[in-house]
């Protein structure tokens, strides 16, 4: 591509294939067209729907305030593309430059973007997972089906797992007036992402809103009645919860199985790529024509010691996709790195939770503003004497300041006074994250080397 005109030819008449037709796939397609790509563009998606937004699926849709089929993503521009929706990709031939589809069709590419995202982790016991009334929540169809069931007024809902999605579901159910039990393996809700100090606040919020929250327990079995409907769950403490709806909220699995044997550096922890979104092959050599973006990608982040970060965050998917698309049709000197500071938000039990940086890397937390007992505060996370993350409970407007502290690797604990400093903020506390060798579904950020053989984080439910 060094001035021999091949880039111009690619932009004029090349073939770009995007596998994954959700937020990242759509934003990449829009960027390609906006930046003058005039060749053929194909988007492949396993779901039959046009790109839609997922955050409302665990909030407004479950409350009945928005219909699941009304969450289409806004289009930033029109995109001339061939859409292959409802047909999953099943294989990749890197040497031939082809993507194989479930209907045995093959789609050739000059550049490939992989944005296949993640799916909900199913209940590991298949027979129990198939009981009527057992749900997961990831897709529009999941959300529509769950919302219909909640509308029928179940006597009790059991949520397995109190990560962000599980907590949001519990919140929506309580808002609808339904009886809710939450079973969480860790010591508190959100503990994997935010640690025990902040997790204790999340636990208090749940209980104040009438959730029957049970921490430190696992669900060992689901029991159905004669008609195949779930009727009870058995817990590791010997107790039984009678319930007619069970929502399995045990985190996500990256959609990389279709790449097995392709030679691409893809595995259960995602697809390793460089800061410019180019995917590595299994030998650790970066490819020239295959890119990855969104939840499925893992890339080195300069702010976090160049460790490979994998982020299941909305904003990350959108920005990484734009950068991947730009780089796909740029000379190497015009490429830009993906360096966005991680950020996510959640809304539960009437509280807006927002975080920047990577709190789960922190070992200490300082409540720099507000008070834990009010459920309105900012927690700043420190790691080896620097600020590495921050979380705000109903205090999100201050976060840009803390993001600057993270970006400038400012000292921890911050040595200055702030407005609204309370007794909680006099000294840092142990952030109280669970032992990372104990699996949890909580964190939406995971770190590690790029080797796809690295399976330490694999979730293994104990029975």
């Amino acid at each position: 591509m060094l001035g021999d005109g091949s880039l111009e030819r690619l932009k004029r008449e090349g073939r770009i294939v995007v596998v994954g037709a959700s937020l990242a796939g759509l934003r990449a397609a829009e960027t390609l067209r906006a930046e003058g790509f005039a060749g053929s563009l194909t988007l492949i998606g396993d779901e039959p729907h046009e790109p839609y937004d997922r955050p409302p699926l665990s909030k407004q849709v479950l409350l009945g305030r928005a219909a699941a089929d009304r969450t289409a993503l806004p289009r930033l521009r029109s995109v001339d593309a061939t859409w292959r929706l409802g047909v999953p990709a099943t294989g990749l031939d890197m040497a031939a430059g082809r993507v194989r589809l479930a209907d045995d069709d093959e789609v050739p590419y000059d550049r490939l973007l992989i944005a296949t995202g993640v799916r909900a982790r199913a209940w590991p016991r298949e027979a129990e997972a198939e009981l009527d009334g057992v749900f997961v929540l990831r897709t529009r169809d999941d959300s529509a089906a769950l919302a219909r069931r909640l509308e029928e007024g179940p006597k009790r809902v059991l949520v397995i797992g109190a990560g962000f999605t599980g907590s949001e579901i519990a919140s929506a159910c309580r808002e609808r007036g339904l009886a809710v039990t939450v079973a969480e393996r860790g010591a508190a809700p959100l503990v994997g992402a935010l640690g025990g100090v902040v997790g204790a606040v999340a636990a208090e919020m749940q209980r104040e809103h009438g959730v029957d929250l049970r921490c430190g327990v696992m669900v060992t079995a689901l029991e159905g009645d004669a008609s195949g409907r779930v009727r009870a769950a058995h817990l590791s403490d010997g107790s039984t919860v009678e319930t007619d709806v069970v929502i399995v909220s045990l985190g996500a699995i990256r959609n990389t199985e279709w790449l097995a044997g392709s030679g691409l550096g893809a595995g259960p922890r995602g697809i390793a790529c460089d800061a410019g979104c180019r995917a590595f092959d299994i030998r650790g050599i970066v490819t020239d024509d295959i890119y990855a973006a969104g939840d499925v990608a893992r890339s080195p982040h300069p702010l976090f010691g160049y460790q490979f970060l994998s982020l299941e965050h909305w904003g990350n998917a959108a920005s990484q996709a734009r950068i991947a698309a730009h780089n796909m049709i740029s000379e190497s000197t015009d490429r830009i790195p993906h360096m966005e500071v991680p950020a996510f938000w959640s809304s539960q039990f009437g509280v807006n939770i927002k975080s920047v940086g990577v709190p789960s890397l922190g070992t200490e937390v300082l409540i720099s503003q507000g008070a834990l007992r009010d459920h309105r505060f900012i927690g700043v996370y420190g790691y080896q004497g620097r600020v590495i993350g921050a979380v705000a409970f109903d205090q999100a407007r201050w976060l840009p300041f803390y993001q600057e502290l993270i970006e400038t690797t400012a000292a921890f604990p911050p040595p200055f006074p702030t407005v609204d400093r309370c007794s909680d903020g006099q000294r840092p506390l142990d952030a109280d994250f669970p032992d990372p060798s104990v699996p949890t579904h909580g964190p939406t950020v995971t770190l590690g080397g790029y080797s796809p053989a690295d399976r330490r984080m694999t979730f293994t439910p104990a029975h």
Partner: protein
Amino acid sequence: MTQSLLHQILDYANRANPYPIYEQLRKTPVHHDDGGPYVISTYYEIRSLLHDPRISSDARNLASTAGDPLAEPAQEEESALPPGFLRLDPPEHDRLRRMTNRPFGPPHSPHRVDGMRGELHDIVSGLVDGIGDPGRIDLVEQFSYPFPVTVICRLLGVPREDESRFHTWADTIAASLDPDPDADPTERGKGANDARMQLGMYLAGLIEERRKNPGDDMLSQLATAKGEDGSMTTMELLSTAALLLIAGHETTVNLITNGMLTLLRHPDVLQRLREDPRLAVPVVEELLRFEPPVQLVPQRTTLADIEVRGVTIPKGASLWLVLASGNRDPQRFEDPDRFDPDRPDNQHLGLGSGIHSCFGAPLARLEAQFALAELARRLENPRLLEDPPPYRQNAVLRGPRHLHISCDGIRP
């Protein structure tokens, strides 16, 4: 002797076009003359400081007001209301703003502002209907000025028959914020104090009445609220109502007047707006960047020594954040002195940012959109009779005192 930049900002001679001074100012992003306030004029530095928890809005944290020409004199005991949430830090600020927001915006009142569309339309068309002689219109007196006061009356639930009294008090208080150098300051101060007192007593009576017979209006809901934050005291309620009135009035007047002035200077945009009223949305955003009604935020102070662009601002120092300069910063906005409603990524500072970002923003935007779209549609061939128009004294809440225009007729 050359005038300091600080005094050039305040100098009335520069009111019509302060932007060249701001350009000078941006050469020193943290500008400080001996003893005066620290003046911040570049976009990114202003935005950072608006989100900085080491910056206080509470005057009690100021080391001294001596060198700051915009510092407010301490209030006299008799008329003193507690400070509104604009002048408070968390947690007091948060509590009052949260309680005030409950009957105003989401999540508790998502339809309040949207539900006023019909009323805004009626007020605007009524004012245009009443313009009279199209040959000589003072847009300020006849349109921009009465509009927001009427809106605030309806929002708070002031009975229609009392609206004219409310207008008189609002006018007197607004005039005191904009001293005419020729008028007798003692007389003016006394008039404003009387108006404040009468307005306060009127509102106190109305609050009492609404507590007994609450309606759907904001004042009723504020007066009877019993949320997680408890209820506001009558004094807090009075100071909040006064804040809504003062902060929501002058600023909206200036947004609309600056808007029409800018459109008349850019007839191509005015023509586009006439043909497509939906353009009012990006036009108002660009106006908030190009001619923001609040030019600068004084009254902020540092809780610690902080460093900005290599300058250490000492604890207790007084800060001015010059929003209007940040909005013209070429580091952030391409071709910043061009009025361009099609500008992408227009994250201006016109409504501030951070916890004190404009409380009434959704309403102010809607008011300006309705006003400018209706003026564009109904005034036939409008033109400026005077350019630049005469301005008010106030350098902070900057806008024309009069805007004389003429047109060939008023369309129905």
